[in-house]
Each structure stands twice: as C-alpha cells, then as structure tokens.
C-alpha cells in the first residue's frame, strides 16, 4: 500500500503554536497565506508588513521577511518597498481599525495608485488587542467597550464597507470579500488569498481580500456562537463576493 499525503503543514509555517484565543480566525488566515506562498514558490522573496494589534505576531508563525508598521501605515510601507524592490512580493496584513480608521488615507491612495501589492484585510468588527472598542466596521447596535449601549448611527456613524468603497476606483485589479468563519466559506478564502498573491506575481496590480473574521473574546461569545453571529449579522451587512476583478471583467 502506498502512502498518500493528504495534508501537511505549509513549508513557510514556522510550526509553532499561535497565541490567538480559541475561536479566533487569524490562525486560519495565516495558514492560507502560507499555503499560497508555498504554492507560488515565493517564500524567499516575500516581504510582509506586520500590523499593530494581535496579528503583529504573524511574524512568529510565518517564515518570510517582515517589516513592522505603525497603526495604519502598512500600505505606505508596502509602497516604499515595492517601488524600490519591484522583484519582491509585498503584502500587508491589516485589521479594520488599522486599515479603515487610522490608515484610511494610506489604503485609499495605495489602491488608487494601483500599487502592485497584496492586502489581506481582516475585518472582525472590533478593536481586538486594545480590548474590544468600536471599530469603523462595528455594526449598528453592536455592543463594544466604547459603545456600551450598542453603536448608534447618530453618534458614531455607520459601519464602513471597504470593498465597495475601493471598488469605485479605476486602478485596483482585484477586490473580494470572503469569510474565515464557517468551513463552507474556506475554499473561497483560500482561492481569494492565492489569487491576490498570484496577481502580484503576474504584475496585475493592487489586490485586496477582505476576510470577515471572529473575535469571540471581545464579542463576549463562545467560539461557535461567534461563527453563527458572523454568518447571521456580518454577512448580511458585508456581503461576500468579488467587487472588482480585472480577469473576469468588473464584478
């Protein structure tokens, strides 16, 4: 009988346990990134931009070169790297507070210049590491430590749909929203992340994947309840799908 490997750790995964809370989806997203890097054979020329927040420690798990960024500035740093070393594969990994609040200017302008970079945007509708404050993507009526009676549009505005907003611009090559919560959504997550890297390898330009994610700790839920909440509350407001794809025409 011949042995057949049906699953193994990605080569670019450092093979250590993560520090993430039970039910957090960062680990799944990291792994999908490692798989894409392995499949494209780009480990030794990839440079990641580590964010501020829980996921700064992505560099403890992913075996590629990393540069740390201040909160929100990752797209500018990625731009600086890619412009001077266009043969490198450059990606940023950013949360919703990082990308859609303090770093809104940087992401909009990197997208508008069509920088040939890959952005993995993790949207869990809350500030995780600082302890569960309101994010720009926090849903209306969602309770956070700074919206204790629920987010009120009159006080705090509405959740921002980043993909829809960036898709209004001419330059971006590929924008898709996927989910990392339910197993049924994982093939789409995996394909989207790989495509976002593949696009850069092929010089197609700015690619962003928004990944809806759970934060059971700061949502105050058990992991399974968090998955269900994402499916029933986040997806209706943040619909999954492609918003822009040069390959397949405008989505």
């Amino acid at each position, binding site marked *: 009988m011949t042995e057949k490997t049906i699953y193994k750790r990605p080569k670019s995964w450092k093979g250590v346990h993560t520090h993430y809370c039970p039910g957090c989806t960062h680990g799944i997203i990291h792994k999908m990134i490692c798989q894409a890097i392995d499949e494209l054979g780009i*480990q*030794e*020329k*990839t*440079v990641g*931009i*580590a964010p501020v927040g829980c996921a*700064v420690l992505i*560099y403890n798990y992913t*075996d*590629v*070169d*990393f*540069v*740390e*960024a*201040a909160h929100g*500035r990752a797209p*500018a*740093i*990625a*731009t*600086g*790297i*890619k*412009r*001077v*070393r266009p043969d*490198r594969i450059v990606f940023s990994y950013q949360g919703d507070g990082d990308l859609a609040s303090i770093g809104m*200017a*940087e992401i*909009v*302008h990197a997208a508008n210049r069509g920088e040939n970079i890959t952005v993995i945007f993790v949207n869990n509708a809350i500030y995780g590491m600082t302890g569960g404050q309101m994010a720009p993507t926090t849903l209306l009526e969602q309770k956070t430590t700074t919206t204790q009676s629920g987010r009120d549009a009159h006080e705090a505005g509405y959740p921002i749909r980043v993909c829809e907003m960036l898709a209004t611009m001419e330059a971006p090559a590929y924008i898709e929203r996927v989910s990392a919560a339910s197993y049924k959504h994982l093939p789409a997550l995996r394909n989207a992340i790989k495509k976002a890297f593949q696009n850069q390898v092929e010089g197609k330009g700015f690619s962003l994947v928004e990944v809806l994610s759970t934060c059971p700790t700061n949502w105050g839920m058990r992991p399974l309840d968090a998955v269900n909440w994402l499916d029933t509350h986040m997806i209706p407001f943040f619909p999954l799908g492609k918003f822009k794809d040069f390959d397949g025409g405008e989505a």
Partner: protein
Amino acid sequence: MEKTLMKGTEAIAEAAVQAGCKYFFGYPITPQNEIPEYMSKRLPEVGGVYLQAESELAASNMLLGAAAVGERVMTSSSSPGISLMSEAVSYMAGQELPVVIVNVMRAGPGLGGILPSQADYNQATCGIGHGDFNLIVLAPGSLQETVNLMQKAFDLAEKYRNPVLVICDGVIGQIMEAVEIPNGTGARYTNPVEWAAGYMDKRGSSVIVRSLYLDAEDLEAHNRKLEAKWRTIVENETMCEKYRTEDAKLVISAFGTVARIARSVVNNLREEGMQVGLIRPIVVSPFPVADFESLSPTCKHILDTEMNWGQMLRDVKAGVRYNIPVSFYGRSGGFCPSEQEIEDECRRLYAELG
C-alpha cells in the same frame, strides 16, 4: 567640478543624487518644493524612483519601507510636515534604519509662516518623536556646506543605521548662489543582506525589521544597544567650527545662516580692534560640548544669536559648564538677525566687559 549658479533646494537635491540617493518620497510644502520637483525629473534619469505621497505621514512611511529593504533613500519637508513625519522617525530609530531627512525650516508654531526660521532646533535635537532615541542632526551654515554635507549625511545614516536629519533655514533653501556639487564617493557603509528585509533568498533565513519588544528584558536590551550606539556617535561625530576665538573676549555662538552673518560681524569688529570670535556647531546633535568647553580662557562672555527665542541656549550654557555668562539676541517670525543688530549687541556687551 566647476561652480554652477543654482537655487539652494535644487543644489541640495542634486547633491543627494551625487551621494548615491536613488529614491525619494515626498509631499509638497513651502519652502522646499523644489527638492521634490527636481527629484521627480532627476531620479528616473539615474534609474531611481520619485513618488509623491498622499501626506507626510505616508511619505515618511514609504521612506521607512525603502530603507527597510536596504536602499539609499531620502525625503524632505518643512516644519509642519516634519511634525507629521515624527511618527515614522521614532519607528525608524527603533528599527535602526538609515535614512536622510531634510528640513527646510519655516517659522512656527502651527502654520506659522513660510519665511526662514530656526525654530525647529529643539524638535530636531530632542529626538522629534516618542521614545528614548537620538537623531544625528546636521545644521550647515551655507548652501555650499549643505551640499558638501549631503554625502556625509547618507554615510552617517548607514554607518550607524540611524536616521539623520539635515536642518536648513529657509534662507539656505531659497538662496541662489554659485555652488560646486561634489561627485559622490560611491561608498556604502552597510550590507543590507545582513539585516534588511527582502534578502531572504541571499541570506537563507528570514528577518523581522522591528521596534516592538513585548518583553521588558528584550526592550531594555534593545534600548541599551541604541544608547551604546549613541555614545559612539557622541565620541566620534561632533563637528564644530571656531573662527578667530583664540584671543576672543566675546564669542558669538550661532548655527546656520545666522552664523554666516555673525562671521561678517566678527570681521567688521576685528577691524575696529575688538577681540570677537565665532563658535559654530555644524553637527548640533550630538552637540560639540568639547569645543565649547575648550574655548580660550580669554573668553569672558558669549552672545548666542538665532532665528528663534534661544533654543540652542541650553546647549551652549551646558557646553561651557555654566562658567561663562551667556546672553541672547534673536529674531523670529521669518526675520533673521541683521549684521547691524548683532554688531550693536556685541558693542554693548563688549563695553561692559571693560
């Protein structure tokens, strides 16, 4: 190379190109706009890249990115823009990145005005951003000296893997005079393969270009390393000019354009037989303490003069160990102390010396 009539900012830009700078990220602000304008045309000619960022925040972080992969890179701005860049400067100091930043200073605070000033001395020499670090700060006294120091700025940045700031007042940026731009040495003082991102294929292992150390032991060790590096810089990299101070009873202390004016004052008063000299820090951080300490025993008084309300005074007083009285004359808002004003002040002080 022969002398060419050039505008200050353009000469500074060309000097940077000659010093091997191939990359520039910037954002428009008066009075330094000719630097990015010149770079936008010039850098593509040398196979480099110019990019106009969406803000100084972004420009300084693009600078960080380019430096993190080991390339020779610079930006320039003016006072309010430098404040915005201070965030990235702190990170770059922590991440030990070699970058050069030129501040063509304008008058502040706030929007202030667009006329020349030296009001960012404190900001520059006290580290600019949050955290425990120091910048190497060059404060050239003329356009020719600025141009000459650009090579040194890049070399120091690489030698110590520390941000270097060049502060020029708006006079140096906007003046038009004949300058000789030196050819670059072509020397590099760092091997990016050893530490920079983007070299995993050549190095065989990954790196993290970081300033985050969550364990106190690790962060203290990192900060000790930065401090030890700074001690080496303090020992080796001060630069100061003393002019006719050997027998001077009254010494003027000044930097930048004010020092250029003060030199004329010294010459004028010397013709009248007054024993007056000039001490001029060229590197203001680290401050040339030893040069002040070793001023001639004939020196009975120091007149510090600046285009601000006396930001260098503290360093001058500490430099002479508070043993020599120091007085101050300054102008602000875009004015520069004139020859006449400094001369009048010198005569008054000199008469009191007896």
